[in-house]
């Protein structure tokens, strides 16, 4: 199963812009490669990444095969309240992975 890493500061001041970095292990098979025998290798990529802050979506990324293997995505959000950030990756062949991180805002 895929391994996901998220980097969210444990605490932040209210209204502070925090940077979030995410990394997930995934081959991101492009669908344009062939084996040495010439058989095409079917596409298998993560197509969507969504980040929600206490249930409200704050960021999303639509990925294509040109995203490198083990997708790394960095973005930012405003620390509005204490709670949970959830991260969801979904893609080809029913791929689905969820990770969450707690943040204390004060």
């Amino acid at each position, binding site marked *: 199963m895929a391994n996901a890493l998220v980097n969210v500061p444990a605490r932040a001041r209210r209204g502070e812009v925090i940077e979030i970095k995410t990394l997930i292990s995934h081959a991101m098979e492009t669908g344009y490669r062939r084996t040495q025998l010439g058989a095409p290798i079917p596409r298998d990529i993560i197509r969507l990444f969504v980040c929600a802050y206490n249930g409200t979506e704050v960021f999303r990324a639509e990925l294509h095969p040109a*995203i*490198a293997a083990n997708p790394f995505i960095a973005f930012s959000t405003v620390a509005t309240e204490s709670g949970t950030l959830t991260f969801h990756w979904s893609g080809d062949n029913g791929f689905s992975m969820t990770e969450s991180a707690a943040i204390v805002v004060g």
Partner: protein
Amino acid sequence: MKRRASRREFLLAAGGAAAGMGLASIIAVEPARATPATMQEAIRKTVGSARVNAGKVKLELPPLSENGHAVPLTVSVESPMTEADHVKAVHVFTEKNPQPEVVTFRLGPRAGRARVATRIRLADTQTVVTICELSDGSFWSDRAAVVVTLAACIEEA
């Protein structure tokens, strides 16, 4: 003596003309390479009939990449990121990958800062274009040329 001189003159003139033609053809070809049709088509599909302006957005990529399998990319946009004036989306396109779309980031006022980063694949030495869509419906773009030594995407497994 006079004949030889005229022959030399002729060769010089001919060589100069050939070089000039070569240069002219390179110049004529250049814009077509920098803006391949498929990328333009993909950009049109995204922005519709809106005008794409230069400025406001900054695309950061290494000018030389030894490995096209993972090229770090950062896009930042000058925007206050308020409810009234924020970045809605950031699109990235390439001109020589098998498919022109790379990624679309969707953000809003809750992002606080319009700066996103990821790692992309590049199949060849080429130009990467980013287009950002603001909340007022305007589109802004930036581009960066990357020299790629080891290509990604199309090699054998």
